[in-house]
């Protein structure tokens, strides 16, 4: 395979250069979070902190970081629960029932993949205010879930198509109804798909910005991404404080990544890599 290795050299160099480009800002974020403001201004941005401090992190909690953190967790888990709760039964029906109605339903979801959330933010705002949900976490969860549904349906239907038909038939012969087949067969066997979709959707909700920006207003209902923005304006040039907030906002996702790297990456690529 010597021929192949030669072709890899330019790509390898490129990969290394890009790796440095990725690494420098991440290094900057992490070390700056542990610096004092004075040290940051005195030293170069990439110097190691001489007297590392945790003060930036502790002061974040005094500034209401916990509220943002809890709100983001509620939004992420709420969105995942809504999406999985409605998408799995729908995918089950679409895969197991070749009716016209369900084919149309599937095509509607496919069409939905192409609608950018931003293009419909004004009517979403109208609907949410009319439902009296403005400035609540539910106002963020519902549209985020709706816009995650198409990809969830696509991934879950392809997972369910991989379940051999004989398994369904065997249960049918035993006289099982759809509900029983769903709980005994579909639910356990679709776990990998559910994990991928859950991670993908949860990550999207965790990092979401537009819906929280437009659909919430008060500090009590705001999520981490907007909290970061607020810290920026509050802190002015306090870059270490801001970078500490960035580190803290990424920690839950980083933990998820370390525990389930494989699931996370396959979740991110779910439905697109084919």
């Amino acid at each position, binding site marked *: 395979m010597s021929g192949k290795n030669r072709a890899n050299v330019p790509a390898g160099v490129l990969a290394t250069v*890009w790796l440095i480009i990725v690494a420098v*800002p991440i290094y900057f974020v992490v070390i700056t979070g542990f610096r004092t403001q004075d040290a940051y201004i005195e030293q170069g941005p990439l110097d190691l902190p001489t007297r590392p401090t945790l003060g930036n992190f502790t002061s974040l909690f005094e500034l209401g970081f916990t509220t943002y953190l809890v709100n983001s967790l509620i939004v992420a888990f709420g969105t995942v629960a809504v999406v999985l709760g409605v998408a799995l039964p729908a995918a089950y029906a679409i895969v197991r029932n070749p009716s016209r109605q369900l084919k149309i339903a599937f095509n509607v979801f496919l069409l939905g993949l*192409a609608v*950018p959330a931003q293009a419909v933010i004004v009517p979403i705002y109208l609907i949410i205010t009319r439902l009296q949900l403005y400035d609540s976490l539910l106002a963020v969860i*519902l549209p985020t879930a709706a816009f995650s549904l198409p990809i969830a349906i696509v991934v879950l239907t392809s997972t369910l198509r991989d379940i051999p038909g004989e398994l369904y038939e065997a249960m049918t012969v035993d006289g099982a109804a759809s509900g029983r087949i769903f709980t005994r067969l579909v639910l356990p066997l679709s776990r990998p798909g559910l994990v991928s979709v859950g991670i993908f959707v949860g990550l999207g909700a965790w990092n979401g910005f537009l819906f929280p920006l437009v659909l919430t207003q008060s500090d009590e209902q705001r999520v981490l991404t907007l909290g970061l923005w607020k810290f920026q304006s509050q802190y002015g040039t306090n870059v270490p404080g801001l970078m500490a907030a960035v580190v803290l906002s990424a920690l839950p996702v980083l933990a998820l990544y370390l525990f389930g790297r494989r699931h996370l990456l396959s979740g991110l690529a779910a439905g697109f890599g084919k």
Partner: protein
Amino acid sequence: MIAAARRERPGFTWAAPAVLFFLALGILPVFAVVYLSFTKWNGLGDPQWIGLDNWKSITDDPDLVNGIVKTVTLTVVSWLLQTPLALLIGVWAAGPQRGRAALSTLFFLPLLLSTAAISLTFVSLLDPNFGLAADYGKYVGFADGNFLGSDHALYVVAFVVAWQFVPFHTLLYQSATRQIPRSLYEAAQIDGATGVRQFFAITLPQLRNTIIASSVLMLVGSLTYFEMILLMTNGGPGTATRVLPLHMYIKGFVGFDMGYASVLAVLLVAVGTALSVVVVRSTGYHRMASDREGA
């Protein structure tokens, strides 16, 4: 048996919650935004039907053409920057070299950061007074270190977009490359094809569907590069980075002119669709539909 077979088919009811939910918040808004583009609405009270007035006023909006130009520029520059990078790194990362797993952990970290976090990080890094930009800007053509305040701010944004999304597209190319049958390379090896030749004769054609999928995602994504710009430049300096989605947000949610914002939203969908059509046409996606059927 027939009765049993009928009984095991889950009916439409199983899909009804998902369908109704999606119709209400995914599909209805698409029609509603067209309706709202014919109304006057400040975000409170009820929208008032005013016919074509919003549509007529697009000719008086100097920022509109600018917004379209900036959006298209950002899309094209982002594609040109990200696609070769992601493709080459993805193919490389699919190879067998040692230490790849450890490296890719670092490599994929940007995917874990929110756009908000990334934007604020780069604002700090590119700060002309205290950031990295102050010390090193002069080596890349920004003598005063003021990257985001320069005429080239849009290209800086494109770079940060790439920083965030190249890992994602790399992931697509990496997993697609792994699925190329080894036998193709072995046959080429026997024929004496060089590595470069193998790349162009086997790898690239086999990745065509992934290239299209990745490009379409970039296109749809480019219409959503809004929060990054809002946080990094707020459209400035002047209107140098005021892309269409940001222009729409400012008109609607800062200026409370929801009717005109809806006009911009309809245009956004039109620009997006037009760009997608161009990509699909120029890559001959319709001709390739047949080779997907066998897969």
